[in-house]
């Protein structure tokens, strides 16, 4: 029974195995980055980047004349970097704060992407780009996704301390002459690379889900940055595993299934988490008797 439910799909189906490998890579790469996005109150920035990538993919789609791997990957990376540079320039030279600049860029690039694709192609391609297909993973995507996951884990390990310091106390960082902005940009680059690597499997709309959802769920269980990161990776792994099985057994689209699994973990964390709702209604210690 358990074998039939949990093991057999992967044992018998190569597409499932590939999907699992890519989701493990994505969980390891994205979830820690998601924790920093959440802690920096930059969930919206993540949103913007995933949609910014979408406009770049759309332009690459038109230039390449259809859905193909490398043009779309390169297009996504260029668009993602373009948007971070654009936002930094706007933030530095105007009165606008980061969240506003990201909201502006988000709308702009989403509209651009949808207009370009509908003008040059069909609804089918639009759905593919937005929602992805985890069961059509070729070797290129497999290698690219695992390479990006390794790169972002390594990169995060290198910039970890200054990034934490820049998050909590940017003024201190500037006063001691640390280049906080550089670490911030490096971090955004890692986010872009991860979003690009996950969009073909989960789609641009869902790529962010695997980054943000486990991070906010983990935050509800932990008050320490290290354990939050470990917990978020664990939750991302559980969500992608159960999401893939859900999608396999009930023939559901893979991206939304994975994000739905992460969503269920999120809902449970809201209720039962250490920083969640239920604990507020437990009797206080000093009212124990």
């Amino acid at each position, binding site marked *: 029974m358990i074998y039939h439910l949990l093991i057999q799909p992967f044992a018998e189906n190569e597409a499932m195995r590939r999907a699992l490998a890519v989701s493990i890579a994505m969980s390891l790469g994205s979830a820690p980055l998601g924790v920093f996005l959440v*802690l920096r109150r930059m969930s919206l920035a993540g949103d913007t980047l995933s949609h910014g990538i979408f406009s770049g993919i759309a332009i690459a789609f038109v230039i390449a004349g259809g859905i193909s791997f490398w043009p779309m990957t390169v297009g996504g990376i260029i668009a993602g970097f373009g948007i971070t540079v654009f936002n930094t320039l706007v933030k530095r030279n105007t009165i606008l704060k980061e969240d506003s600049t990201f909201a502006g860029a988000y709308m702009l690039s989403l509209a651009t992407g949808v207009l370009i694709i509908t003008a040059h192609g069909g609804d089918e391609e639009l759905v593919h780009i937005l929602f992805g297909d985890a069961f059509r993973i070729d070797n290129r995507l497999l290698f690219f996704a695992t390479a990006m996951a390794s790169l972002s884990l390594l990169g995060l390990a*290198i*910039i970890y*301390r*200054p990034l*934490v*310091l820049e*998050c*909590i*106390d940017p*003024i*201190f960082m*500037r*006063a*001691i*002459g*640390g280049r906080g902005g550089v670490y911030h940009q490096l971090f955004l680059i890692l986010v872009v690379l991860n979003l690009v690597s996950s969009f073909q499997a989960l789609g641009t709309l869902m790529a962010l889900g695997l980054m943000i959802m486990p991070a906010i769920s983990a*935050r509800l269980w*932990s*008050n*320490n*940055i290290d354990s*939050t990161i470990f917990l978020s990776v664990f939750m991302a792994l559980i969500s992608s595993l159960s999401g893939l099985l859900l999608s396999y057994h009930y023939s559901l689209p893979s991206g939304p299934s994975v994000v739905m699994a992460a969503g269920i973990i999120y809902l449970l964390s809201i209720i039962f988490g250490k920083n969640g709702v239920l604990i507020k209604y437990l009797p206080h210690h000093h009212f124990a008797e």
Partner: protein
Amino acid sequence: MYVKARPRSKCGVCDLKGKYNVLLERYQKACRRFIGGCVFMGAMFLGGQMKLELHDLTVSYNRHPAIHHVSGVFAGGSLTAIAGPNGAGKSTLLKAIAGIMKPSTGKIVLDGFKPADIAYLPQAAEIARDFPLTVLQLAVTGYWAQKGASGKISQELQDKAKYALASVGLTEFENRSLASLSAGQFQRLLFARLILQDAKIILLDEPFTAIDGETMSKLLEIIHNWHGEGRTVICVLHDLRQIRDHFPECVLLARKCVAWGETKTVLQNENLFSAKLFHEAWREDAEVCEA
């Protein structure tokens, strides 16, 4: 300098050899004395001259000067308060010295100091206190200048950090989360971090806002300790009595520098009155400075 006198076995004249050795020894001793003296004099010279100078300093927000044409000298090892009405540019002056704001004209000269010698404590509200870190983890960020992005914080340094936390009255707080601290406890934590930064110049921006009397006297004691250790401390304060009681030097700001020097002379009525007259609002038609 310790050149061993080579035995001259070929030379049969023992007397000459002995003389040579004696001469060499004298020469070496003289050299050592001379170099030691030079180092000592250099240290005296540098130490005596260490200072932080402001030359005709103007710092602006959006091209409106918050302080203008401020000149003066903070002597190395001095303990100075910066006083002045709201909007007088006190915090701006500190930010400029800390290197966070760039002067629009004029300059700040660090004579004998490096930029890395400066530690800066901004006004309280600028730190993300909901970030999931422990008290000890934040305290050890004070080692940044020493350890950078990847240096290991050894057990010894951690013990030192715990000692610093104890000295501000945060014993057994090491593993508490930042979110669980009160405003006063958090300010004490920041002072512990300043202690660990071990900086030669310490800039404090209104460190006693929302702080109770007991904590304040503890923090004042730390400031006096820094002064005793020969560090240069510059502190923005509102409370004139506190300045008179604890700070030997004072700068009175009202966009320009009204007075600078010994606290007694600076905080005289006429100076305070002229500081009060200063116009807080920006005027687009303000006359052009002659200076």
